[in-house]
């Protein structure tokens, strides 16, 4: 299966959109070679601000730029662009609903070598808790490209969570992306798995495995965590024998929580989570090894489904 870097897609999308939309500006906290905001720097140096190793100042400066009509994208690793400047994102940007876009790069465990300080297990939870914040998690490079355009075309504070590693391309280039829409990746009548990011490919593998055993799993890509289309979630879960969520994030406050919140009044199937069990990350020599360590695998999804179907 073809793979592509999501962060390269992100940087290229910013450059492509910035050609016609002169209001787009980018701010970077000394990680431009990783976040790929450096592509924007090369293309439009006059609209690129290297804010150095000072994330809080970067976020508030972006607020000021938004207040003069610009569309600022602030860039850093997810752990920093959410945690390091949480107060700035909350106070000035989100209370006023400013048009600031936040890129959380190298998100989740995807910066496998750098360990717990650089791995974000709670960024979706933090961003989801802020009133009015849109939270996006692209599944692949193709969706990333469309998502960046949607971020430019829709006002308000938005967070995009970007994986550091090349991920399989699972979505077609010719279908539109809409913020808040659920995308069914595979139909199934018995079980629904709501997944996002790297876990969508794992969910599809689990579905394939279970199909051979006569269990048909619907896989839904929840690339917008917030605003979540509650009615669409309910519709996907209707008539299913089990609901499983799968995310590269803590089981507290992320996708699983969002789905459970959406289904809280439904007398339907039981819900189980695949995610990181309220612990921090750790260093590993490769990404897959780390995902296996935290149980973020197709096997884990299959096991949870079977557990609910017993």
């Amino acid at each position, binding site marked *: 299966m073809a793979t592509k870097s999501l962060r390269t897609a992100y940087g290229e999308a910013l450059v492509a959109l910035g050609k016609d939309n002169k209001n787009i*500006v980018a701010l970077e906290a000394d990680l431009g070679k990783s976040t790929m905001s450096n592509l924007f720097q090369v293309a439009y140096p*006059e*609209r690129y*601000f290297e*804010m*150095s190793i*000072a994330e*809080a*100042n970067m*976020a*508030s*400066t*972006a*607020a*000021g*730029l*938004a*207040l*003069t*009509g*610009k569309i*600022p994208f602030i860039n850093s690793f997810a752990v920093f662009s959410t945690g390091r400047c949480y*107060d*700035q994102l*909350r*106070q*000035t940007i989100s*209370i*006023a*609903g400013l048009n600031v876009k936040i890129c959380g790069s190298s998100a989740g465990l995807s910066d496998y070598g750098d360990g717990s300080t650089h791995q974000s297990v709670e960024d979706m939870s933090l961003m989801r808790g802020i009133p009015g914040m849109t939270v996006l998690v692209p599944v692949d490079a193709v969706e990333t490209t469309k998502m960046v355009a949607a971020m430019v075309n829709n006002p308000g504070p938005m967070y995009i969570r970007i994986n550091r590693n090349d991920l399989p391309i699972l979505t077609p280039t010719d279908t539109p992306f809409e913020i808040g829409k659920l995308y069914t990746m595979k139909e199934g009548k018995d079980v629904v798995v709501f997944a996002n990011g790297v876990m969508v490919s794992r969910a599809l593998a689990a579905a394939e495995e279970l199909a051979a055993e006569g269990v048909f799993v619907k896989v839904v890509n929840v690339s917008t965590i917030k605003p979540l289309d509650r009615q669409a979630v309910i519709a996907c879960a209707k008539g299913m024998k089990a609901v499983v969520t799968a995310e590269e994030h803590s089981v507290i406050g992320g996708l699983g929580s969002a789905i459970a919140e959406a289904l809280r009044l439904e007398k339907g199937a039981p819900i189980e989570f695949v995610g990181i069990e309220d612990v921090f990350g750790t260093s590993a020599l490769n990404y897959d090894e780390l995902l296996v360590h935290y149980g973020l695998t197709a096997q884990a999804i299959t096991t949870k489904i079977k557990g609910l179907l017993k």
Partner: protein
Amino acid sequence: MVAAEVIRSIEEKALRMRELIVTDLIGEGKVGHLGGSCSSADIVATLYFHKMKHDPKNPKNPDRDRFLLSKGHAALVQYAALALAGYFPQSELKKVKSLGAMLQGHPDMTKTPGIEANTGSLGQGLSIANGMALGLRIDKSARRVYVIVGDGEQAEGQIWEAAMAAANFKIDNITAIVDCNRLQATGAIKDRFDLNPIRPKWEAFGWNAIEVDGHDVGALIGAFEVTEQVKGKPSVILANTVKGKCISFAENNAAFHNGMLTAEQCKTALCDLETIRKGRA
């Protein structure tokens, strides 16, 4: 040279703002940020009623100077100025902090005409002002950004991140004013994190720094004019002020950072202000 009557008129606005803070924005038996509002009053009056290009009838006019309070808790002084300038009816002042009011406990641009940014979490306003100044520069605007920072607020590390950034980007369409009233919420700054001497710190961070008496309107006007002429670097006015200025019992008294005013104190405060007015006449 600014005409004496211009200065007198600004001084009178500042006195009137203080009166509105006492009578309408705090009021008998209520609590409000009196001290830091009164220390900033002459600076705010000079900006709104002399220095800045702004239009109360069209608060979002792109061709306007921007003013923001990084020390957002001094919102009362800005509310008084905005009401006097005609951004909203003076009747709004007494509704401050009440449910559904246009005037919140801290500045809220989504609710109050003339407020440029949501501030209140200290340390962020200088960064916001930098962003505005950079945005205006991209747009080739001749307009300027004015931001008041509290001297106690300088304990927030982000102030110094912003100071570094402004110098690095050679932002010269910003004037920061540090309201040096020497007190923070619980007492003297020098007994907490003493930053004195302040001026060499700003200069070391690459800023053009000017020290003035923050209650001398003529000196403030002069300082603002000097900062406009400085090119290639940001400017800061270190305004030496008195917390609670013009209110006898509140001057240099940290208890009135966010204190309650009794009926008797309200009376005394208005009497103090009237005495100053008569002394100037």
